[in-house]
């Protein structure tokens, strides 16, 4: 552990890769959260795949592999793809899911064609362009990270400044329009920020896997909080955590490429969040349901005992065999239900398997029946 920390600070490659991954996780997590809430997670997928022809065209036009040029190309292509999706939905009867699939495959296919075309060229300048497919973090330079950090900072700053407007747009765009906000322009701006966030990750994670960094941190963060103001920063932090963890893990093992490991780390975070986040986690939900079922069963037994006893003058003094309760339909859970009730002091054992209500039990049963009657009247 100490060695890893030491390397994180002093090892140039690991430090650069970890920083770059943290930046991409932060930006894509935060903006991915809003995309997810606007049901635009798939749009992230389209944007990142559509970046590929942008990267290739930028290389063909400029002849250089300078990250800013390639990222700019990626951004423009991703942006054009989102406009295409919007245009198809508005102008035709094609639904948005089909339009997203169409844009993704057409742009990605065009990117692959351009890539093969470039690779057939005799000069050596093109070497490494295919790394944009799955990313190659090891090629990151400090200057690349600085570019990515600047882009991410601009995107996050814009998100912070227009926070109120974007929240309104995400929750209820019609209402935003009625309040006089230009929703169309806000929508384009927020999508542009998403494009920028995706562009920051292409060199590290690649066009194919980048969409996971849009969806995964957002899905994980949603599990832990019910406030947008906490969910968005948390998604950013979880994305950064996945980025750094992936960078460190892949550095400890030779020939493990960073991008896929980052995505696996993000996936692990999602799985833990889906399972164990308080309230929304599956484990807690199951536990809550089991508790509710047990409580309901013991209440049924209590009421059954009361109904049996109420036929006598002094309900607390009569005992009934558990077999009678079973015959009334409580079934297999009656033993455990009686134990629960005994622990709560509502019933006591009167014989080997005979049970009677305590005075507290009689009162509880009466209160319960009265409450139920009230509920029935109210509904």
């Amino acid at each position, binding site marked *: 552990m100490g060695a890893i920390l030491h390397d994180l600070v002093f090892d140039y490659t690991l430090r650069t890769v970890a920083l770059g991954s943290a930046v991409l996780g932060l930006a894509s997590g935060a903006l991915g959260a809003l995309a997810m809430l606007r049901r635009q997670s798939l749009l992230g997928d389209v944007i990142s795949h559509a970046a590929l022809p942008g990267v290739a065209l930028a290389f063909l036009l400029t002849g250089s592999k300078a990250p800013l040029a390639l990222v700019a190309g990626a951004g423009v292509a991703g942006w054009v793809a989102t406009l295409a999706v919007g245009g198809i939905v508005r102008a035709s009867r094609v639904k948005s899911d089909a339009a997203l699939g169409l844009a993704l495959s057409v742009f990605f296919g065009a990117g692959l064609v351009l890539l093969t075309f470039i690779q057939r060229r005799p000069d050596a300048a093109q070497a490494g362009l295919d790394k944009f497919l799955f990313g190659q973090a090891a090629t990151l330079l400090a200057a690349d990270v600085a570019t990515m950090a600047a882009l991410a900072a601009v995107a996050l700053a814009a998100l912070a*400044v227009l926070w109120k407007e974007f929240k309104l747009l995400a929750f209820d765009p019609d209402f935003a329009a009625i309040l006089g906000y230009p929703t169309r322009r806000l929508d384009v701006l927020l999508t542009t920020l998403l494009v920028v966030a995706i562009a920051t990750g292409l060199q590290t994670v690649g066009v194919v896997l980048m969409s996971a960094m849009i969806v995964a941190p957002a899905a994980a963060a949603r599990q832990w909080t019910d406030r947008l103001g906490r969910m968005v920063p948390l998604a950013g932090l979880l994305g950064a955590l996945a980025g750094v963890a992936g960078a460190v893990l892949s550095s400890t093992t030779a020939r493990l490429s960073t991008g896929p490991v980052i995505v696996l780390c993000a996936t692990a975070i999602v799985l833990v969040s889906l399972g164990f986040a308080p309230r929304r986690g599956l484990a807690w939900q199951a536990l809550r349901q089991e508790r509710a079922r047990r409580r309901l069963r013991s209440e049924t037994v209590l009421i059954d005992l009361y109904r049996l006893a109420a036929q006598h003058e002094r309900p607390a003094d009569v005992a009934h065999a558990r077999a009678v309760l079973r015959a009334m339909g409580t079934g297999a859970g009656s033993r455990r239900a009686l134990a629960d009730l005994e622990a709560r002091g509502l019933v006591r054992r009167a014989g080997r398997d005979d049970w009677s209500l305590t005075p507290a039990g009689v009162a509880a049963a009466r209160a319960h029946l009265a409450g139920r009657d009230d509920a029935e009247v109210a509904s």
Partner: protein
Amino acid sequence: MNRAIAAAERPGAATPAIEVSDLTVAYRERPVLWDVDLSVPSGILMAIVGPNGAGKTTLMKAILGLIRPAAGRVLVHGRPGGEQRRLVAYVPQRGSVDWDFPTTVLDVVTMGTYGALGWVRRPGRRERERALAAIAKVGMQDFVGRQISQLSGGQQQRVFLARALAQDAQVFCMDEPFQGVDARTERAIVALLQDLRAAGRTVVVVHHDLQTVPEYFDWVTLLNVRRIASGPVADVFTERNLRLAYGGRVAFLARDPGSGPDPATSEGGRGRA
């Protein structure tokens, strides 16, 4: 306010709250609204009724400036909708938003103040107090910090209503506010709408239950792509107009003109078409 009351008594005397002229809206080739004229005096409580697909929600969205008409225009307090949007508050159908959105009752209601706040500025203590006052008016003060998915349908409707109240608008447009709410909440909402009217505000409601129209509203517009009739309930909510709006399908007996204010009755129980 005096002016508003005067306008209610003598429609057309003052600037109407809403004036729709020659409005035509089409989705693709199919007209949803055809050449609709409407003049709504301020300070009234108006129902928009009509069969499914009659264009009720579309009319409301056109008034709100949310959709661009193929022809015609909408004036709100004498000015085009786009200019005067903040004068209009909107209570959409409950299903129009994602109730699992990570936000609280207070947060949603505070959104009603965003229009007056303008760009970039964040809601402060004044906005918070306005939102809390609106929440108290709809009786939701015990749920201020509640996540909105944990509310019942009626409570969600009241949150939307509070958000509209926090807008402090002149005209309130509501799309089926009574859908899926229990009788008690319905009565509470009606009382609030009547308070708004008493304060000189104009309230327009897309409504489904024909039986309660005479009880709740003083003005009604019957719509079926075209405007069938619009005016005071006593004048236009007649069997003849209802037949025109709903066609022969509806077994609905409005009260006979002149036979007094008996609530309408229908063979099928609630007068849903």
